[in-house]
């Protein structure tokens, strides 16, 4: 990485490290009940306490010239702080800004709130029943989105099948759990809002804050330092409205809000999911039809869910040749914290279902899981259930690379005594954002320095390094001459978001576009000096030259100087057009398909049910690898991250109260969980396009492990995480697949 030296010196600065003169500390009062009414909220005592500068409550909103209470990029259903109703434990009710955290904490304790509790509902299936309490009056069945896909005659497909198999898979709420907590600093200066925040989508944050405060987007400046991890949890809009609103009351002084770990747990989660998948298959292994019904528990507010749940529709079917497909994906309000993107967004839950199910199908037919997939997996040129033609797809190569790494065809030592070994595999397809845009700016100075202005967020994935490499190669300058600036919405151009593994592809292509323009400009300014037509000039290795006259050449710097220019500035852009019909799911789901696979060997202790992953081999399709070291870290990181929700991670609630809001009771994978052997393969193609690799080997992890558990001990686990208790219970119950 460009700043590797700073990283090992502990010198990288994150949002949590921000210090501004005269800065106040914000603390949030959070609701203690899962659902109900606020019948009294009295903050008058808190306002007079020593050190307290501002106390923000819902009463501060919707006044002339003041901020609006309700926001939401998709559905404006969420209050900045609760007004009359509260909908989950941990929902913000008031915010205090004070001189220090002790004063702020004391003030929180002095705010009196009385609630009247209503019945609450926590599971997505329960929330859809007629008896369930209603969270939002305009959605009386608690359903706020219904994504659909209709392709071919599903019933005819089931009728033509030799076997029709239906299974239901569940996946609980989980934590993105970046080790750096959410932090934002806000300051109002002359009617302009400045926010420093650890956010993955600076322009989304800017747009939402501008709407809340009724000011133009240019009146909001978002600056994003390095992130100490994001994984989707810092996507969309998170704590920025809270801190911007309390700063608005603190007139001019900067205010910082850093969440505690317990607050992290109630700020954003992975979607809970219940997924029923039904497939028709012929004895020869041909698939005839598939129906997928997905119930997404989205928490109390829509947040980023509408877009994510629509995106889950094409992500839920799997990379298989199936002539008839029907998908229904429901987004459902529950009395739990809002859910949003989680590394491998929606695909993790979907792949858990369709790849466990694929294994069930193969076993039922008595086929080898790799052979069964080889027979059915989609190849380039074939049609997906969205109606679009697949291009540059290498699902089978990913599977084969993972299988080969593991030694799929080698004999397996089945183990002895209580320790039984098994092998499993899984493959996944994921769409990126169908319609989005990335812009950048390149500035070449006369001293040969190239500066890339980009709103791509550096969150550990090494995006700034990869983009600098792309710029250096395209402009033909040494990497050491390239600097990356951003994100800062006052100076770096628009980018939709750093998520969905889109940055290397989208921003990388924008950089190539800018580099092309920069070279054109260099040709134009050098042409009159060299007395050749601009088209005849080559721009390579830091020089502009005429191929036919080797002496006729000059450096970029010389061309600028002799043209009387200090610098050349160009912009670059890459945009994709696509989208699916909301009623039929037909259209273009993605500009390119994300592809990954995993294969593993596990050991299952039949006396305790404990599952240990001994070896894991992962493969993803990279199109063109920019930085092999960073790319391997993505593949590895996905596997380790994926082992969390596969084996360990589950937010456990009792009546809406989280029982494990800390990293002791909620376990993340450590070195003692890491497989003894890890393999990573990155596949490239002659087409040479950049493909996203930030998530591809994550969704296969849980189903590959579950399939290996089945191979080892013959029980099919359909609930995540695959805990020792679940495996042991399945073993005792004798439940087989």
């Amino acid at each position, binding site marked *: 990485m460009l700043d590797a030296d700073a990283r090992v010196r502990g010198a990288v600065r994150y949002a949590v490290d921000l210090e501004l003169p005269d800065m106040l500390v914000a603390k949030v009062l959070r609701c203690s009940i899962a659902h109900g009414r606020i019948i009294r909220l009295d903050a008058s005592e808190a306002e007079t306490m020593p050190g307290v500068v501002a106390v923000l409550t819902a009463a501060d909103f919707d006044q002339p010239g003041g901020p609006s209470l309700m926001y939401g990029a998709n559905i404006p259903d969420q209050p900045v702080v609760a007004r009359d109703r509260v909908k989950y434990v941990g929902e913000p009710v008031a915010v205090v800004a004070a001189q220090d955290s002790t004063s702020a904490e004391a003030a929180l304790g002095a705010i009196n709130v009385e609630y009247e509790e209503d019945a609450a509902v926590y599971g997505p299936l329960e929330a859809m029943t007629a008896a369930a309490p209603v969270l939002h009056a305009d959605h009386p069945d608690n359903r706020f989105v219904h994504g659909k896909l209709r392709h071919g005659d599903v019933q005819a497909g089931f009728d033509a099948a030799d076997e029709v198999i239906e299974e239901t898979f569940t996946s609980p709420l989980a934590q993105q759990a970046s080790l750096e907590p959410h932090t934002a600093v806000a300051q109002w200066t002359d009617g302009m809002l400045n926010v420093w925040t650890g956010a993955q989508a600076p322009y989304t944050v800017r747009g939402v804050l501008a709407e809340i405060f009724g000011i133009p987007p240019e009146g909001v400046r978002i600056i994003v330092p390095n992130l100490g991890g994001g994984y989707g949890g810092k996507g969309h809009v998170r704590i920025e409205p809270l801190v911007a609103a309390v700063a608005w009351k603190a007139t001019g002084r900067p205010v910082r809000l850093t969440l505690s770990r317990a607050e992290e747990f109630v700020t954003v989660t992975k979607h809970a999911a219940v997924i029923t998948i039904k497939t028709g298959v012929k004895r020869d292994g041909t698939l005839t039809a598939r129906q997928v019904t997905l119930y997404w528990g989205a928490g109390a507010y829509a947040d980023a869910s509408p877009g994510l749940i629509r995106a889950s529709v094409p992500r839920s079917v799997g990379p298989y040749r199936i002539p008839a497909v029907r998908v229904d994906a429901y987004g459902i309000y529950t009395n739990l914290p809002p859910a949003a993107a989680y590394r491998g967004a929606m695909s993790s839950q979907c792949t858990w279902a369709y790849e466990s199910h694929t294994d069930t199908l193969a076993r039922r037919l008595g086929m080898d899981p790799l052979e069964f997939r080889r027979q059915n997996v989609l190849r380039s040129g074939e049609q997906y259930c969205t109606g679009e033609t697949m291009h540059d797809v290498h699902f089978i190569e990913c599977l084969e690379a993972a299988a080969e790494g593991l030694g799929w065809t080698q004999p397996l030592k089945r183990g002895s005594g209580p320790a039984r070994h098994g092998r499993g595999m899984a493959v996944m397809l994921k769409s990126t954002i169908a319609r989005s845009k990335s812009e950048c700016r390149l500035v070449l100075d006369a001293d040969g320095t190239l500066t890339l202005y980009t709103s791509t967020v550096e*969150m550990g994935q090494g995006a700034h390094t990869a983009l600098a490499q792309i710029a250096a190669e395209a402009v033909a300058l040494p990497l050491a001459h390239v600097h990356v600036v951003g994100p800062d919405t006052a100076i770096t151009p628009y980018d939709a978001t750093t998520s969905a593994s889109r940055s290397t592809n989208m921003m990388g292509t924008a950089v190539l576009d800018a580099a092309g323009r920069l070279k054109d400009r260099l040709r134009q300014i050098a042409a009159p000096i060299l007395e050749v037509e601009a088209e005849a000039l080559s721009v390579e290795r830091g020089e502009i030259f005429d191929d036919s006259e080797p002496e006729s050449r000059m450096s970029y710097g010389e061309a600028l100087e002799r043209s009387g220019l200090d610098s050349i500035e160009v912009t670059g852009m890459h945009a994709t057009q696509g989208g699916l019909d909301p009623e039929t799911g037909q259209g273009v789901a993605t500009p390119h398909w994300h592809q990954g696979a995993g294969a593993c060997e596990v050991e299952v202790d039949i006396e305790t049910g404990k599952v240990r992953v001994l070896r894991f081999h992962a493969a993803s399709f990279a199109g063109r690898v920019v930085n092999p070291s960073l790319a391997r870290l993505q593949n590895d990181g996905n596997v380790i991250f994926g082992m969390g929700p596969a084996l360990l991670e589950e937010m456990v609630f009792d009546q809406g109260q989280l029982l494990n809001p800390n990293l002791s009771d909620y376990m993340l994978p450590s070195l003692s969980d890491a497989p003894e052997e890890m393999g990573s393969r990155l596949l490239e193609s002659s087409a040479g396009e950049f493909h996203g690799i930030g998530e591809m080997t994550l969704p296969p992890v849980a189903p590959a492990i579950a399939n290996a558990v089945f191979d080892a001990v013959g029980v099919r686990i359909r609930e995540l995480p695959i805990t020792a208790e679940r495996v042991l219970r399945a073993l005792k119950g004798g439940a087989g697949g």
Partner: protein
Amino acid sequence: MIEFRVNGEVHALDADPARPLLEVLRDELGLRSVREGCGIGVCGTCTILVDGRAISSCLTLAGLAEGMDILTVEGLSEEGALHPVQQAYLDHAAFQCAYCTPGFILATVALLQEAPSPDEATVRAHLAGNLCRCGSYRNILEAVRAAASG
């Protein structure tokens, strides 16, 4: 008044002895490599060395460090040159977001002082108290192996 040595320098601070050492090092001395992750001593992010032993600074009261010798990553390099463990982490790209990296590096320094040539099981057991959510564990193991043999 609390007095202790930090990165070779003696500091006498007028700080509440009941404050977490983490806060005092960050806020009073500006040592930003000391970072909070979980706040309850289980993630290893805030690891520092106190008299050569790796401890969680979020759980240690500042007053308990009275008279002790504290080392943070800022004090690890000598005259700007990276410590061999830092160099090994850099050479093996053993980080992504790097929020956890100072804690890992100090835990590795403590391990190699105790066991200069640890086997892999020892490394895994010793570093299991440090979490890397980005999942760079393979590279971290490679870095520790290199630092141990180098």
